C-alpha cells in the first residue's frame, strides 16, 4: 500500500491558479509575428443561390491582405466524418449564417470594413425548416449529391433529405403489440439548445512556406481534427501540427472544426499567420448547437403493468449539414426505449437536412432529448393506468440477466437500487408538501450511461529532480481531467500529487489520442496513464535494485523513494534512495537529460457495465403566473471508486444545472431559420438564484472499467433532469407539458386547458 493516497482525495485543479490569474493561454491569446485577423461574411438567407460575388471593393480597403471566396479554394468538402460542408459556400447557401467569403487584414476593423464591401447577389430558394416536413417527397432536396458524400454510415435510405436512418431493437414489435392489453402513444418535442461555454471558438493558423501548417485552436479532439484538416486541405497529416491551448468550456461544443479549415486558406492567400475569433452573436447564430428532436413513443403494456412492446421514432433536425457529428447519426438515440425490460422493441432515428443552423454534439448527445421523451411517456402510462410511477418503473426496470431494449447485456445492473435510493432520499412515500395557493408535484426519471471508447498514448518520465512528468497531447476542456490523470501518476509512483507535472506536447510528438468526450477520458486516458506510470515504476525498481544491492522483488516505492526493507534473509537491512537519484544514474532519455521514460498506449473496449442515474424533482407552480420553481432535487448515481470527490461532485452539480436550464429556460429561438436569441440576455441560462437545494446520492460499490474500478461521471447528471422536472410538473398540474422548455407560459396554458377540461 502506498503511503500517499492520491486516489480518492479532493485535489484542486492544477491549472486553476493560472486560469483565475489570467496566465493560462487560450487560442485567442496566442499571437505570431506578422499575424493578421480573419473575418467571415455570412449569408443573410437560409436558402439561396449565389448569383454573383464581387470582392473588388473589399480588396481595395487599406490593410486588407486577402479576400477569398469558394472560387479561390479547392472543390473539397469537410466534415468530422460525413464530408458534406464546403469551407465557403459554393453556388448555394443552405443556412442563415453560412460563410460565403472571408477577409484577412492587419486589424479587425479593416477586416470588418472589407466584409461590408463584398457584393453578393443572392436569389432566394424555397427553404425548409421543419425536419418532418423535409422528409416528405415534395420538399426541396437540399443535398442532391448526398449519395456521393464520403462518410455516410450506410447508403441513403431514399427518404427525402434523410442522410442517416438508424434503427435499434430486439424481438418482433408486431408480435409484442398483439400480446399487449393496453397501448399508449405520446409525442414530445425538444428544443434547440446552445452549449453556452464561456470561450467562443477561436483559431490561429500559420501556413508556412515549408508546406507545414501550425495550428492553435480550441478544439478538444486534436488528432481527429488533424485528420479532418488533412483531408480537406489535401496535406499529409505529418505536415499539420496542432499545438496545446487551454479550453474555456466545451460541453460537447468544442469538437467541431468551425473556422480552422477556412483560416488556413486565409493564411495561404495572405502569406501570413491568421487568427479568427467568433463573437457571441456568431456563436449563438452559427456554431454547432444541440439537436432539436421530435419523438413519438408507442408502448404495449400488460394489465399488470409489464411492458411487452415499444415502438419509438425520433426525427433530429441536423440543419444544413451533418459535418459536425463525429458519428453522423447520434448514438444516444438508442436510449429512446429507456432502461426497461421490453422483449419487443424498435427505434427508428432519422437525421434530416433542413435550412436551419447545423447541429453538433452537446453533453451526452441525443440522450437528454430521448430520455425526456421516454421518461415522460413512462409517467403518462403510469398515470393513465392509475399506477404509481415509481412502482410502474420497478415492475419494468432492467435487472441482472436482462437484455436492454436494444440488446445490451450488462453485468451488475443496479437500476433498481439507484432508483430506490433516489426515491428514498426525495421522500417519495411521504405526502407532498402542501402550500396554499400553489400546485406542488414530484417526478422521477432514470437513465443509464455506459462509457465511450477510444485510444490514448501517455508517456511518463522522471529526471534528476525526482518530479514525475506526464507527457501527452491532450487538452483539458475544463473538467479537471489533467488533475485526475496526475493523481494516477502520483498514486502509482507514490509521490504527492503536487509533485507530478504535466507537459503538453503537440500532435507531432505523440501517437494518436482520442480527445475529451463521451465519458471516456477517465477510462481510456486513465488506463494509458496508469499503464505508463506502472511501466515507469518497474523501470525505476529495475534501475534501483543494483544501487540498493538487492533483488528487484525486495524493492518497492514509498514516499518518493525506492526502498528495501528487512527480509528474513537480511533482518536488519534497510536502505532507501530517492527516485530522482535513481533517475540521475540512468542514461540520457528525455530531451538528452538523464532519466527514465515509459510510454503506454491503450485502446479501450466497450465496457460490460453501465452506470445508472436516477433523479427526483419536487416543484411548486404558481397557478396565477405559471412560474415553476424547483424546490428540491435529488440525483443518485451508480458509481465505482471515486477518484477525486471534489471534481466528481463538480461534474454532478454542473450536469444537473445544465439539465435544469434545458428543462426550464434555455432555447435558441428560431424564426424561418434565423436565430433571434443572439445574446445571453435573450438566451437564458440558469443563474445561481435558480438552483434548487441539491442532494447527491452516491450508490457506491460498483466496479467500473476505469482505473481503480471507477466509472466516468461527465455526462450522466445532465440527462434525466428535464424528464424528472417535467414529470413533477405533470404531477402538479394534472396535465402534461410535452415540449421543452417548461416555461411559465406553457404552465399557464396547461392549467387553463385542464380547468376547461381539454
Amino acid at each position, binding site marked *: 500500500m502506498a503511503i500517499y493516497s492520491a486516489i480518492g482525495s479532493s485535489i484542486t485543479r492544477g491549472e486553476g491558479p493560472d486560469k483565475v490569474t489570467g496566465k493560462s493561454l487560450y487560442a485567442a491569446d496566442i499571437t505570431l509575428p506578422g499575424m493578421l485577423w480573419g473575418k467571415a461574411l455570412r449569408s*443573410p438567407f437560409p436558402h439561396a443561390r449565389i448569383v454573383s460575388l464581387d470582392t473588388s471593393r473589399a480588396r481595395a480597403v487599406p490593410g486588407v491582405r486577402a479576400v477569398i471566396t469558394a472560387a479561390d479554394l479547392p472543390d473539397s468538402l469537410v466534415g468530422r466524418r460525413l464530408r458534406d460542408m464546403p469551407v465557403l459556400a459554393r453556388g448555394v447557401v443552405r443556412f442563415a449564417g453560412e460563410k460565403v467569403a472571408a477577409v484577412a487584414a492587419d486589424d479587425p*476593423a479593416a477586416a470588418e470594413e472589407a466584409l461590408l464591401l463584398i457584393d453578393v447577389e443572392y436569389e432566394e430558394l424555397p427553404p425548409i425548416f421543419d425536419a418532418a416536413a423535409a422528409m416528405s417527397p415534395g420538399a426541396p432536396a437540399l443535398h442532391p449529391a448526398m449519395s456521393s458524400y464520403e462518410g455516410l454510415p450506410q447508403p441513403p435510405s431514399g427518404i427525402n433529405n434523410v442522410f442517416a436512418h438508424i434503427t435499434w431493437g430486439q424481438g418482433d414489435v408486431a408480435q409484442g403489440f398483439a400480446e399487449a392489453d393496453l397501448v399508449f402513444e405520446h409525442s414530445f418535442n425538444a428544443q434547440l439548445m446552445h452549449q453556452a461555454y464561456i470561450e467562443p471558438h477561436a483559431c490561429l493558423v500559420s501556413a508556412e512556406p515549408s508546406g507545414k501548417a501550425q495550428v492553435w485552436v480550441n478544439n478538444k479532439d486534436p488528432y481527429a481534427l488533424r485528420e479532418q484538416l488533412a483531408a480537406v486541405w489535401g496535406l499529409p497529416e505529418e505536415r499539420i501540427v496542432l499545438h496545446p491551448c487551454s479550453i474555456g468550456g466545451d460541453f460537447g461544443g468544442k469538437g467541431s472544426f468551425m473556422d480552422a479549415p477556412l483560416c488556413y486558406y486565409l493564411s495561404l492567400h495572405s502569406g501570413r499567420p491568421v487568427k479568427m475569433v467568433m463573437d457571441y*452573436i456568431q456563436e449563438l447564430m452559427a456554431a454547432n448547437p444541440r439537436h432539436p428532436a421530435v419523438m413519438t413513443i408507442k408502448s404495449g403494456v400488460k394489465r399488470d403493468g409489464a411492458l411487452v412492446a415499444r415502438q419509438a421514432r425520433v426525427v433530429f433536425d441536423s440543419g444544413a449539414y451533418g459535418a459536425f457529428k463525429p458519428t453522423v447519426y447520434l448514438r444516444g438515440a438508442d436510449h429512446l426505449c429507456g432502461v426497461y425490460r421490453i422483449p419487443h422493441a424498435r427505434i427508428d432515428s432519422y437525421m434530416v437536412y433542413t435550412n436551419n443552423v447545423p447541429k453538433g454534439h452537446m453533453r451526452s448527445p441525443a440522450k437528454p432529448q430521448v430520455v425526456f421523451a421516454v421518461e415522460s411517456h413512462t409517467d403518462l402510462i403510469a398515470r393513465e393506468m392509475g399506477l404509481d410511477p415509481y412502482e410502474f418503473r420497478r415492475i419494468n426496470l432492467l435487472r441482472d440477466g436482462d437484455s436492454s431494449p436494444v440488446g445490451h447485456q450488462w453485468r451488475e445492473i443496479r437500476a433498481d437500487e439507484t432508483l430506490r435510493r433516489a426515491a428514498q432520499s426525495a421522500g417519495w412515500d411521504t405526502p407532498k408538501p402542501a402550500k396554499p395557493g400553489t400546485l406542488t408535484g414530484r417526478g422521477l426519471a432514470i437513465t443509464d450511461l455506459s462509457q465511450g471508447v477510444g485510444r490514448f498514448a501517455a508517456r511518463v518520465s522522471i529526471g534528476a529532480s525526482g518530479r514525475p512528468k506526464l507527457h501527452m497531447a491532450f487538452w483539458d476542456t475544463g473538467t479537471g481531467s489533467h488533475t485526475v490523470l496526475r493523481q494516477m501518476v502520483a498514486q502509482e509512483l507514490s509521490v504527492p500529487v503536487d509533485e507530478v507535472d504535466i507537459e503538453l506536447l503537440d500532435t507531432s510528438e505523440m501517437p494518436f489520442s482520442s480527445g475529451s468526450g463521451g465519458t471516456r477520458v477517465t477510462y481510456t486516458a486513465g488506463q494509458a496513464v496508469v499503464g505508463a506510470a506502472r511501466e515507469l515504476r518497474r523501470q525505476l525498481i529495475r534501475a534501483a535494485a543494483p544501487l540498493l544491492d538487492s533483488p528487484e522483488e525486495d524493492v518497492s516505492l514509498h514516499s518518493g523513494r525506492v526502498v528495501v526493507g528487512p527480509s528474513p534473509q537480511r533482518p536488519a537491512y534497510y536502505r532507501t534512495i530517492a527516485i530522482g537519484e535513481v533517475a540521475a544514474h540512468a542514461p540520457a532519455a528525455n530531451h538528452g537529460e538523464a532519466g527514465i521514460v515509459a510510454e503506454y498506449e491503450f485502446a479501450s473496449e466497450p465496457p460490460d457495465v453501465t452506470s445508472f442515474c436516477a433523479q427526483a424533482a419536487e416543484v411548486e407552480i404558481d397557478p*396565477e*403566473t*405559471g*412560474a415553476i420553481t424547483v424546490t428540491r432535487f435529488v440525483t443518485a448515481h451508480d458509481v465505482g471508486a471515486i477518484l477525486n470527490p471534489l471534481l466528481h461532485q463538480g461534474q454532478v452539480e454542473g450536469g444537473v444545472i445544465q439539465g435544469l436550464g434545458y428543462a*426550464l*429556460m434555455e432555447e435558441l*429561438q428560431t*424564426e*424561418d431559420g*434565423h436565430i*433571434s*436569441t*443572439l*445574446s445571453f*440576455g*435573450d438566451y*437564458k441560462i*440558469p*443563474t*445561481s*438564484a*435558480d438552483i434548487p437545494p441539491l442532494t447527491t446520492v452516491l450508490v457506491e460499490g460498483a466496479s467500473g472499467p476505469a482505473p481503480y474500478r471507477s466509472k466516468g461521471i461527465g455526462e450522466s447528471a445532465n440527462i434525466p433532469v428535464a424528464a424528472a422536472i417535467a414529470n413533477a410538473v405533470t404531477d402538479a398540474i394534472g396535465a402534461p407539458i410535452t415540449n421543452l422548455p417548461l*416555461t*411559465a*407560459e406553457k404552465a*399557464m*396554458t396547461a392549467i*387553463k386547458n385542464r380547468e376547461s377540461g381539454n
Partner: protein
Amino acid sequence: MPPFQYIEAESLDDAVGLLAESGAAVVGGGTDLLPQVRDGIVAAERLVGLGAVPGLAEISESGGGLVIGAAATIADVAGHSGVRRRYAALGEAAGGLATPQIRNAGTIGGNLNQRPRCWYYRSPLIPCLKKGGDRCYALAGNTRLLCVTGGDRCYIVHPSDTAVALSALDARLETAGRGGGRELAVGDFFAGPGRDLQRENVLEPGELVVRVILPADAPERSVYLKVRERESGDFALVSVAAALSFDDSGDGGAVIGQARVVLGGVAPVPYRAVEVEEWLVGRLASGVDPAEAAALVLPNATPLPQNGYKIPMARNIVKRALASLLGNE
C-alpha cells in the same frame, strides 16, 4: 468594438455642452449602451459620463421627499433607507432587477433611458423600424415578449422596472438641455411609438435626465411584483407597481385616497391601469375584493398571436399586489 472617446463632465453645463455635439451620448454605467455600440446598433463617438458632476451620484432628502441624482447607482437606490421606508415599490423594483453586477454599475438615469430589449431591435442583422428600417419583423415572427396594448407599427415593451415603480409613486423627472431644463411627471416622460418610432421618451436631442424627484405626498404604501423566467438577470414578462394612500373614513375605517396601479411588460411605456385606479378610489379598504378590481385590468388589450398569456398573468399579479397592500390576502 468601434473606438470611442469617454469624457467625464465636470458640471451640468459642461455635460450639456458636450452633448450638444453630434455623435455624443450620455452614459451612466454603460451596461446598456456599450453592448449596443459594440454591436453597431447605436453609433456613438463620444460618451459623456455624469458621475463627476457634483451631486448627480447622490440621493438626498428634500422638502420631505427624496431627490435621486441621475448617476446614482441602482444598488444605491435599492439600498437607501429612505427609499425602502417610504417608496417600497421603487426599492423592490431596483433591488430585484438585472444582476448584482449590473445594479452596482448601472444608474437610475441609464435604467430609465435604456433601450428596448426586443430582439429584432437588438439584432445587428435586422433593419427594424425602430432603427429606421422598413418594417417590424416581430409581427411576422416571435411575439411572445411583446406588448399587448399601445403598439403602433412597433410593439416593444418598455424594459425598465424602476420606471414602472416611479410612475406609481408619482415621481417627477428633472432634465437639462440646450434650451434649459424642465420638470415633468414620469407619466409624461415616456412616449410610445405613435409619437416617435425611434425613441421611447420625449427627450430632445442633447437633453438628459438630471434628477428623479420623489414627492413627499406619494401614496404611503406601495409594492412591486414581477414575473420572470429566471430568478436573476431577467426582464419582466409582466410586472406591477401598486401604490395606495388611505384616508380616515370618519367611523374608524380606512378609505382609499390615492390609488396608482402601473404595469410593466405589457406596453411600450409603463402602463397605468386607470380603470382599476378609478374603481379603487373612495372605497372602504376593508371592503375591496382584489379580484374584482383586477378583473378591470387591460380592458382593451389587443394581444399578438403568442402573448395572450400576459393578460391573465397581469390580472393575477394586480390582484396579488392589491391583496398585499390591503392586507386582504
